[in-house]
């Protein structure tokens, strides 16, 4: 194993262990998607009467959207952990060791992606009880989990990049809150794409959150377009790579301020 992989795994163990010690966070993280599944899907259940939904069950339609939205919002907060480590001098302590620099970011991003995957399994399980089905079996589950994990990794990269630049919690929260709702609305999370106004459909094509929704939803449609799902997973992988590189650049610029 190379040093970079070893260091990433050592630090990943640290993040996961610390997270498991505070299971309350998982409960908090899962409260919101449950409200979407249990309340919102009921409140708007007649919406599928409109033409454009390929299903007559709104919870069936909504579930992939809730999965991706949960990964998105969870990941935007992930940079808080970096700010905590900066404040407490943990980052500086590691920087004075031979630990690979990239491992500090990579471990955080991987941690977020794994959390998103776990949340996805729980959400899909709950949705199953409400009658929502993943139509494409194990491969379908895999694609949905991958979509959530990649959305999580991509936004974790952005969140960490911003965290390393602003280095304070308040501006990080303010910046990410600013993007949260517009990116949720300019996507097919809550409504079928064909029902969106033309300009929003156009804008959604550039929204990485929506890429995850498109890929995941193919797996719960009666007709699955595998190449479309594959294309969007590929786009998400490119997005996650790009944001992680951006976060590394932010890390470099942070190191220059020391």
């Amino acid at each position: 194993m190379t040093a970079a992989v070893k260091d990433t795994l050592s630090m990943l163990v640290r993040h996961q262990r610390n997270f498991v010690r505070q299971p309350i966070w998982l409960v908090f993280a899962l409260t919101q998607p449950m409200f979407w599944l249990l309340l919102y899907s009921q409140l708007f259940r007649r919406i599928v009467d409109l033409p454009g939904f390929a299903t007559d069950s709104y919870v069936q339609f909504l579930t992939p959207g809730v999965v991706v939205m949960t990964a998105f919002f969870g990941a935007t907060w992930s940079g808080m952990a970096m700010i905590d480590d900066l404040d407490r001098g943990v980052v500086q302590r590691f920087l004075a060791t031979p630990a690979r620099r990239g491992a500090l970011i990579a471990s955080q991003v991987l941690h977020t992606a794994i959390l998103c995957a776990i949340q996805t399994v729980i959400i899909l399980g709950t949705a199953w009880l409400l009658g929502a089905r993943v139509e494409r079996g194990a491969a379908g589950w895999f694609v949905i989990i991958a979509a959530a994990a990649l959305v999580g990794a991509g936004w974790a990269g952005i969140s960490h990049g911003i965290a390393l630049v602003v280095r304070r919690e308040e501006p990080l929260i303010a910046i990410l809150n600013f993007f949260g709702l517009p990116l949720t609305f300019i996507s097919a999370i809550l409504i079928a794409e064909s029902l969106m106004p033309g300009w929003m459909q156009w804008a959604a094509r550039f929204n990485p959150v929506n890429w995850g929704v498109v890929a995941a939803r193919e797996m719960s449609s009666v007709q699955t377009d595998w190449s479309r799902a594959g294309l969007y997973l590929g786009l998400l992988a490119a997005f996650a790579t790009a944001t992680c590189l951006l976060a590394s650049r932010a890390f470099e610029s942070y190191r220059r301020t020391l």
Partner: protein
Amino acid sequence: MAAIEVEGLEKTYPKGVRALDGLSFVVEEGIVFGLLGPNGAGKSTTVKILVTLSKPDAGEARVAGHDVVREADAVRGSIGYVSQASGVDVHATARENLFLQGRVQRMPQLELRARVDELLHTFGLEEVADRIVRTYSGGTKRRLDVALGLVHRPRVLFLDEPTTGLDPEARAAMWEELERLAESEQLTILLTTHYLEEADRLARRIAIVSRGRVVVEGEPEKLKRGLLGDAVTVELANGNADSAAGVVARLGAVEEAIVDGRHLRARVEEGAQAVPAILSALEADGITVAAVTVSRPSLDDVYLHYTGRDFRAEDEAGSAEQ
């Protein structure tokens, strides 16, 4: 070979703050070396460069024989760094912190396990070893900070303000800990401090840093002895302190007289003999004295002598800036 060699370091921060202005010193192996100076003098910046966190604009530095810029990884493997901000993961236990530190320092698993047990024992952390660090007292946490810096048996240990923020009791305990460390380990320790008594007590040699430069370097005792005579401190009850300084400075026995608020500090050859002359001179000028103390020169006086500035006033100004 010297453990640390620093030659002409310069560093200016982006906002134009000149932190280091040609700083140089050498630390021989196996001793405790104190970088002493008020807040804002450039001590922490120096340490950050020596532990490879930061790069100098100019100048060179070698730690354990390696260049801090060109051979940064070799330096990182041979040093321990205990920063002011601790750096402990407070959500994990002491044992977990030590293990992770050993792993990123590339220690083999078996050796690491033995070393962690040894350090937990040495630093009196056995009882709390498997408790979350957040529950520790300030002193206990600080001991873990130091232990973390020692996991991989570094040749040079950097302690940046090791006792700042500790209560007097924990500070005394930390001093004892560091004294023991200096004796037992084959280790060179560089510590920065703005406590004169800390440098006096722990360091074999010190360098006094002021405004980004070393103003004087040597053994604390010799530096103090180098200042002939005693320090006389006069607390004024009334009258203008500056004119009082003028009066006292004109006395033949007085070599130096400096004002610090209501206090007038004079350096004289023989304290007991000079006091009556100082008092009568002040009285003749209509200045009332509240108290007089005579003391052997301290590092305060050394600082004053070499920089012409009062240590405490500089220290407060420096912390206000930060």
